[in-house]
Structure formats: structure tokens, C-alpha cells
């Protein structure tokens, strides 16, 4: 079939490309419906990635957070009309130790491979996860980011020592908020502290036990475990504060993406016996776990619905570009496009 793929060809310039697609025996066809913009998409859209990265990866369709409607399943396992979350990573091998999202051979959409800004997505069937009928569709658009939060918390659970008294999350943005909402479900008895730069954003974390603006953290505050969700220029300060406030032998999960290398106070990492562990992306089991957690907690669903920042129906390429610009000017929440292009 002749499919239209909407690709970023250079910063702020999107063009359509016709791609002749063939349905493989393991594929289904999905019509994308709700697409959520990630900071990683914005770094391509605005041209903040290094020029050599841009020239290697573009042209490329953006967006790796999306749901859609199944329009064709040759095996009849999915029903036509089913809403599915689309998993952006596509693994090509199985490893007994390395998870699918860390395998170097795995292709990741909107990072070297076409993302979900397409007329139809030809999707390997194991890359689709059914979304329950009662889920809010705009919230479901960013289930991928929820699954990334799940992955971080699962890794923390596997790695950390027995001290689950308190968890500190650095970052008051989208990822910090999602991870904090999930932490309440995964670690219900653990005190949850949020550290952020913006008092107005910290106000959204009403479910946390305490929130702190990062320039006024009490010196004597200690936390058992930590998650860093800042990224960018904020990463260095956040990692330093975590090292200062975390108890000996604590685990810090690093999630924020930085373009530049970050200095780390290794003297204290060594002295305290800390574990710093990176996480990135997620796999199928994290999507399934995310849906399981949200299905069991209408409260978590309602908190995540508070994260729906801006929404708009887009039907043309200029409207897509306007939407990315609107997202850049928006201070809180996820930007979700109702995809009718």
C-alpha cells in the first residue's frame, strides 16, 4: 500500500513521503489517533541535536508516544477497532540477559527510524499492546512515557538495598510527575519527596509527602533511594544533590538525557558505596505493567490525566508545525495531537 509518512527533513520543516509498504505475516496495520510529543522529538524539531546527528538521522518521522486503532490484522487476533499502544522499540534478537530496550540491534522509532507521524503504521504484532476500553485516550497517548517510568522503578526495585523508607525524585517536569505517580503505586508505604526548580509545578505533586525547591533543601535531609528525572543542564546539579542527600549504599536511577557529559563527585559515590544506574526507554513488559498498574488504580489514572497539557486536532503539515511550537511555549504537561492528517 502507498502510505504517507510525515518526516522532519530539517529543523522545523516537515514533508510527506510516499512509502510502498508490504504487510508481513506478523504485521498489523494501525491508524494512529493520539500522538504525544516528547522532549526528544523537540530536540530534533528545533535542531538542538548536533549537526552530525541531524544529518545522519533526518529525514525521519517524529513521535514515539502514540496510540492508534487497529484497521487490519490478517491473523484476526486483534479486532478491527481495537485501541492499541504502539511500542517504539523493535527488537531483532532475544538475549537471556540484556533487555530488548538496551540491545544495540533494537531499532527505536523517532531515533534513527520513522516514528508514528504516519498515515498508517505497519506494526509487528508484538509491538502493539491493547489499551483497555475505559482508558482516557489523551492520557493513553503517553503510555510509552509511563512505561519508561515503570522500567525505572522496576530497576530500582531490583537493585536497591532493603531500605525503602523514602524515595527522592529530582525533576518537576513530565517524567518526574509520571514516575512519582507510579512510585505511589509501586512503593505505597515509602515516603515520597519531590525536588524541583519551580514552585508552581511542584504544586501539582499533591500526592507526595514533601516537595522541595532545589535551592532550599534542608542540609540534614536524607533519602533512602533516588531517581533523577531532570536531564539537560539540570542533571549535574541534581546528581550532585542526590549524592549529598542519599544514605550510604543507596541507589540512584538516572533517567534524564544530557547532550554534554556531566561531572560526577566520584569521591562521595565511592565513600558512600552508592549505585548509579541508568535507564532508558522500555520494553513490552513495561507497557503491560504500566497498563496493569493504571487499571488497578483509577487514582493514578486521574493524576496522569492532570498531565494532559495541550491538545489539538491536526489535519495538515502547517498545523503539525504550529503544534510543536505551541508545545515549546507550554509550561506544564504533555502535548497530545489528535491525529487527523
Amino acid at each position, binding site marked *: *500500500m*502507498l*502510505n*504517507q509518512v510525515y518526516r522532519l527533513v530539517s529543523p522545523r520543516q516537515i514533508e*510527506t*513521503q*510516499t*512509502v*510502498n*509498504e*508490504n504487510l508481513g505475516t506478523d504485521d498489523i*496495520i494501525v*491508524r494512529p489517533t493520539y500522538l504525544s510529543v516528547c522532549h526528544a522529538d523537540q530536540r530534533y524539531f528545533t535542531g538542538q541535536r548536533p549537526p552530525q546527528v541531524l544529518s545522519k538521522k533526518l529525514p525521519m518521522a517524529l513521535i514515539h508516544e502514540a496510540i492508534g486503532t487497529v*484497521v*487490519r490484522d*490478517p491473523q484476526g487476533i486483534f479486532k*478491527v*477497532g481495537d485501541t492499541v499502544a504502539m511500542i517504539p522499540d523493535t527488537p531483532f534478537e532475544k538475549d537471556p540477559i540484556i533487555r530488548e530496550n538496551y540491545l544495540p540491534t533494537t531499532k527505536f522509532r523517532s531515533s534513527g527510524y520513522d516514528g508514528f507521524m504516519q*498515515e*498508517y503504521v*505497519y506494526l509487528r504484532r508484538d509491538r502493539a499492546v491493547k489499551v483497555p476500553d475505559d482508558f482516557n485516550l489523551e492520557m493513553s497517548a503517553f503510555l510509552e512515557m509511563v512505561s519508561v517510568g515503570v522500567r525505572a522503578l522496576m530497576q530500582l526495585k531490583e537493585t536497591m538495598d532493603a531500605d525503602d523508607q523514602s524515595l527522592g525524585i529530582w525533576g518537576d517536569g513530565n517524567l518526574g510527575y509520571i514516575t512519582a505517580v507510579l512510585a505511589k503505586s509501586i512503593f505505597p508505604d515509602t515516603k515520597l519527596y519531590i525536588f524541583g526548580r519551580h514552585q508552581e509545578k511542584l504544586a501539582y505533586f499533591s500526592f507526595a509527602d514533601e516537595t522541595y525547591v532545589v535551592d532550599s533543601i534542608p542540609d540534614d535531609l536524607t533519602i533512602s533511594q533516588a531517581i533523577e528525572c531532570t536531564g539537560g543542564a539540570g542533571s549535574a546539579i541534581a546528581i550532585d544533590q542526590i549524592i549529598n542527600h542519599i544514605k550510604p549504599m543507596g541507589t540512584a536511577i538516572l533517567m534524564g538525557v544530557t547532550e554534554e557529559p556531566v561531572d560526577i563527585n566520584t569521591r562521595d559515590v565511592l565513600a558512600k558505596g552508592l549505585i548509579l544506574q541508568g535507564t532508558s526507554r522500555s520494553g513490552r513488559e513495561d507497557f503491560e505493567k504500566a497498563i496493569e498498574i493504571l487499571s488497578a488504580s483509577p487514582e493514578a489514572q486521574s493524576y496522569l490525566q492532570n498531565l494532559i497539557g495541550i491538545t489539538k486536532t491536526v*489535519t495538515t503539515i502547517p498545523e503539525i508545525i504550529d503544534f510543536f511550537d505551541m508545545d515549546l511555549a507550554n509550561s506544564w504537561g504533555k502535548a497530545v495531537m489528535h491525529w*487527523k*492528517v
Partner: protein
Amino acid sequence: MIYAQILAGGKGTRMGNVKMPKQFLSLADKPILIHTVEKFVLENRFDAILVVCPSDWVSHTQTLIDRYIADERVKVVVGGSERNETLMKGIEYIQDNFGLNDDDIVVTHDAVRPFITERIISDNIEAALKNKAVDTVIPAIDTIVQGENEEVEDIPVRDKMYQGQTPQSFNIKALMSAYNQLTEDQKAILSDSAKICLLAGEKVKMVRGESFNFKITTPYDLKMANALVEIGE
């Protein structure tokens, strides 16, 4: 009920010396017609999808449909000698095989416009459910000049000029009523189905097309179409 009608009645006279009608020529390793039908079968709201073709090409068309399209909704129907007769042959088939209800609509599309998108089909269905007739258009880029005998008669304001594409979609009963009001001469010369409704005094709603939803008519068009398509992984 919602029907699609793919008009594959063309004989390919503008394509030069090729013997095969243009809808059967190959684009990205598949007949153009098949690319078009593939897009329509992904729309779940269609109750039946008719492919209306010249009588000599029915067997060939049926063979292609059987080979490439696994969808029971697709029916091959014999067309007429010119465009509007072909259109009405499809309507007759619907009437004879499914019956007609007041709110039944048909989305008609040229077989040789394979770059049709989900959005255009969906907009046509939604507009046809609310209006008697729907035309797919794009704003004219070139200035349109009206003339006769090598002389310019008029240069209409470009902002009001559009280029007509397909789909053209209709409430079926309204289309039949409008068609029956035409004289035999009008039936013979009308090259545009939306005009049938205009002549009968019906309003025709415009839906936005796409510049790439062009009609493959000449060898140049076919070359351009092949150049536009990237082969998927």
C-alpha cells in the same frame, strides 16, 4: 449503508501507445488500481467496495483483486461507455444487490489516483453523511485562464479557483434524482459527476484534497508517480 465505487472504466487513450488501460499499469511493482483499492479496504465503514471496469477487463480485474485483495466487500462490476454511465452502472448494482435507503452514500474515486489518503476518504464520508454532494478540491496554484479560439475570454480571481480531484461523494438517491433530470446531451458531455448535482440545484460541499492525490493520465504522470514512491523496509 456506505459504499465506495472505484471508477476503473478508462481505456488509457491518453497514455500513448500502451494497449493496457492505465489503471492496470504497474506502479511500485503493483497495478495502480490495486494500490487504490488497498487504501479503500482499510476503511471499515464501507459496506461494499465496487470496482467498475470495462466489460473486456472484468476477468483481468477479478484476477488481480483475487490475487492482491482479501476482502469480501470488493465486487467487480461492468461499467458503461463513458464516465457517468459507468458511475450509474455502479449505482444500479447497489440498487439490485443491496437495495437503497434514503441515507445511503457512495464515495466515488478514480482508480488512477492511488495516492488517496485515509484523511481524504474519512472527510468524504463525514461530509457526504451531512450533505447531498461532496467534491474533493485543492486550491489552484496556477492562474486559471478561460479562453476559446486562441483568445483569452476571462481570468477569474485565483483565490476562488480550485482544481477538482476525486473522491466525489453523494447521497445516492439525490444523485439518481439529479441524473434523471439531465438531458441525453448533458449526460453525454458531462465529465464531472459533482456537476450533475450542481445542475439539479444541489449544493456541493468542498473537502480538501492533496496536491499529491493526482490522476495518473499520461506517461509523464506515471514516471512522476514512480519517482515519488520509496520502497519500504
